[in-house]
């Protein structure tokens, strides 16, 4: 081991190629840009997290007593905007995707390295504008900017927040564009479409949504800004506009945006479950095509956010039916992951614990989505805590679990170090318990009728709210732990070799951390994806038994 350490200390790789601040701010290396994103979104995750904790603290008691009503409204609005646009949407694609897409397909970099850097700068600029908006006036429109409240009634920094998200949208579009071109044009010899890791398929589907959906959000927010500044009548009925038009445009992007958040996490699942079951994926083509199906069907279901908004009976019926169509490919994925474990050789490593947690939480989030797609139930539970619980099960239970699972799985590749395994397992367990305690009571609360976005609430909901707040504090510990031990491992962690899990992806065939241009020689692929019959059956580095 000591020789390996010496060699890796001397070897030049992407991390030790330069040390100055300029070597980072002007880098075009996709791996360094991924780390720039990592730092940025981790910062915003904690900003959004602090806002969430303040929300939960306010809701500890039925009276509005911790903060003022206006402050509370800003807390949940900014929590949503920061978490959605500055953490969830960039999270897996811009960090793990950026780092791994070229490595997994055997390319030297993304197709447009400078555009890749530009997209990071756009996110940073957007983030600074958002932080400024939060400091000077805040935003109290909810993350949804519903009109005419946002255009004619709110007294807060709506324009600034709108511009910020407009810019962040371009960051997302450019990342998607880069991935689509890279996946089409830069695959190594032999890396056919049917041999692509499913992580790549998931990112391909995600990129298509980013490319096609985000411009609509950008236009919509621009119209909000125009109506607010120039008093045009687009959405405000007093000026001849149509408030429901806004909702259609907004959800046309923002429903598919849920798949921007969850598809990459599903992609991560395939890599982790196969590796720690030592199995090829069950039903490769069905899993790959289900990603595409989700991307396509995802564009046809937006008005299920509007069943009680005033759309016609028949459009409600059609959108309810179409919403079920998007549930089928999601179900296919869950069944295939389960089947992949069958007759495997399973190691309970940290990434696998996150993956199992993902399946559990995503299944519950998906199942409750079936309730919401059913018109009769939706009328009662829409805009209550039932919806809050549902989408947190998908976007936090699903997407964040996937992100953390992926971070642990590829941390040795990214940093060249191992994280402490037993701490990793402990954190995964804490996150799982804390998450369920936070959000499960919200399903009950919602069916009982507690509306969302309430600063004060009737006393009968208090017990459930206290449980939820208690869960949130546990969850906070669970999220802080990995940050602490990841930082610790960068200095004190065991040196990781090229392939600590004995995994089969191309990214494991180059050193950890990889050299700047990823591969010394362009690899030639002659095997199918997840060909676990080809490698030794055990991941070496997971020596700690539970």
């Amino acid at each position, binding site marked *: 081991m000591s020789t390996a350490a010496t060699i890796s200390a001397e070897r030049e790789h992407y991390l030790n190629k330069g040390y100055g601040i300029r070597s980072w701010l002007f880098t075009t290396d996709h791996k360094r840009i991924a780390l720039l994103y990592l730092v940025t979104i981790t910062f915003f995750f904690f900003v959004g997290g602090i806002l969430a904790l303040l929300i939960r603290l306010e809701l500890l008691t039925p009276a509005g007593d911790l903060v003022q*009503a206006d402050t509370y*409204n800003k807390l949940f609005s900014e929590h949503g905007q920061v978490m959605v646009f500055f953490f969830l949407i960039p999270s897996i694609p811009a960090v793990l995707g950026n780092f791994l897409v070229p490595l997994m397909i055997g390319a030297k970099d993304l197709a447009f390295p400078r555009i890749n850097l530009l997209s990071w700068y756009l996110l940073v600029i957007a983030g600074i504008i958002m932080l400024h908006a939060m400091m000077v006036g805040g935003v109290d429109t909810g993350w949804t900017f*519903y009109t005419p*409240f946002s255009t004619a*009634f*709110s007294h807060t920094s709506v324009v600034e927040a709108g511009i910020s998200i407009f810019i962040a949208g371009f960051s997302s579009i450019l990342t998607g564009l880069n991935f689509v071109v890279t996946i089409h044009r830069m695959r190594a010899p032999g890396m056919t479409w049917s041999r692509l890791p499913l992580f790549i398929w998931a990112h391909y589907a995600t990129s298509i949504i980013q490319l096609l959906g985000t411009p609509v959000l950008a236009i919509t927010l621009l119209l909000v800004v125009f109506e607010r500044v120039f008093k045009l009548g687009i959405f405000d009925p*007093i000026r001849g506009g149509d*408030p*429901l038009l806004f909702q259609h445009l907004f959800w046309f992007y923002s429903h598919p945006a849920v798949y921007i958040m969850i598809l990459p996490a599903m992609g991560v699942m395939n890599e982790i479950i196969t590796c720690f079951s030592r*199995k*090829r994926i*069950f*039903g490769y*083509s069905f899993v790959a095509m289900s990603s595409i199906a989700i991307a396509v069907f995802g564009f046809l279901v937006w008005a299920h956010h509007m069943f*009680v*908004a*005033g759309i016609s*009976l028949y459009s409600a019926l059609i959108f*309810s039916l179409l919403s*079920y169509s998007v*549930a*089928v490919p999601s*179900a*296919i994925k869950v*069944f*295939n992951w*389960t*089947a992949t*474990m069958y*007759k*495997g*050789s*399973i*190691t309970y490593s940290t990434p696998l614990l996150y993956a*199992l947690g993902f*399946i*559990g939480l995503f*299944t519950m989030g998906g*199942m409750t989505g079936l*309730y919401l*797609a*059913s*018109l*009769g*139930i939706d*009328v009662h539970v*829409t*805009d209550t805590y039932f919806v809050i619980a549902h989408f947190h099960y998908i976007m936090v239970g699903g997407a964040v679990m996937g992100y953390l699972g992926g971070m642990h799985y590829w941390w040795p590749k990214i940093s060249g170090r191992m994280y402490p395994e037993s701490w990793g397992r402990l954190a995964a367990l804490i996150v799982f318990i804390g998450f369920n305690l936070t959000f499960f009571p919200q399903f009950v609360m919602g*069916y*009982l*009728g507690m*509306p*969302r*976005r309430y600063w004060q609430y*009737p006393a*009968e909901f208090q*017990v459930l709210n206290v449980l939820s707040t208690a869960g949130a504090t546990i969850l906070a510990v669970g999220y802080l732990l990995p940050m602490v031990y990841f930082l610790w491992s960068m200095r004190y962690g065991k040196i990781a070799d090229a392939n600590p899990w004995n995994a089969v992806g191309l990214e494991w065939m180059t050193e950890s951390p990889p050299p700047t241009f990823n591969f010394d020689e362009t690899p030639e692929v002659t095997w199918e994806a997840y060909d*676990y019959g080809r490698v030794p*059956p*055990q991941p070496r580095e997971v020596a700690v038994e539970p």
Partner: protein
Amino acid sequence: MDRLATLLSPLWPVEASTYAGNVDALMIFLLVVTGLVTIGIFILILVFATRYRRRPGHEPLQIEGSTLLEITWSAVPLFIFLIFFTWGALIFFQERTPPRGSAEIYVVGKQWMWKLQHEGGQREINELHIPVNRDVRLIMTSQDVIHSFYVPAFRIKQDVVPGRYSYTWFHATRPGIYHLFCAEYCGTMHSGMIGDVVVMEPAQYEAWLSGGGATGSLATTGQAIFQQLACNTCHRSDTQGRGPNLAGLFGKPVVLEDGRTVIANEDYIRESILNPAAKVVSGFKPIMPTFQGMVSEEQLNALLAYIKSLSQPPASVAQTPNLQSPGHEQQKPKVQ
């Protein structure tokens, strides 16, 4: 049953309308079906994770997949989803089709209160008194931002949108006091835009109606406004007016100058008052001035009630709703 209900009461909302029971039945069906499937998946994962854990001498078996299984686990869920869809759609259809002869109550949402107008002329803020066992239809609009009228005990919710009318209806089955919430975020005191729906026994409701101090029915108020604004100079009750005769108009098709035919519903009448040039009736000139900014939402509601009353036989104009529908149950009021 009662003990079970008491035991579940912190976890299950009270059912106080005919519709609520239908929603709950579907909810229980969903809970059972998705619960069983979810538990099934979790058990499989736990069994696989234990049974196929890494052990010396245990080699994994590489399986490519199975098209038959894939088709099965796509088709079976799809079939179950179609049941969810159909059942939910049937309930929704019921929620969207109020029975004929429902009592009508007008609702105006504003930041941050609910204003309610009864046909009998009674007006309330953040309190809605209604009789048990009677179909009640709400005609709702907002004078500022979007709100949402939500009564959890009835399982109904409908957004209230400025510039147009939206509708919901219910049939309360159980006297008591129930929460009325605003469910669409509407600004600073969104969480203060709450009230009570008071479901009363017919006798108590009668007492409440007569104690309300209403000076006349909503339609009569509307008639007064109609005259105040001099609408009656053009919209005369004969064929000589410069505007169409409004008697018998409501709910009927109207042929427009450009050849289109529209139904004279609430939205049409609203538009014709606020933006008369938008839809000009065939045979008339676009001479009517706009009343935008001159009538409040509540006055518009009164005008609507008046114009509707012109379509009814004179006897029923501005009558209080018939309270004694057959077969109602006697139950003690219960405060929720």
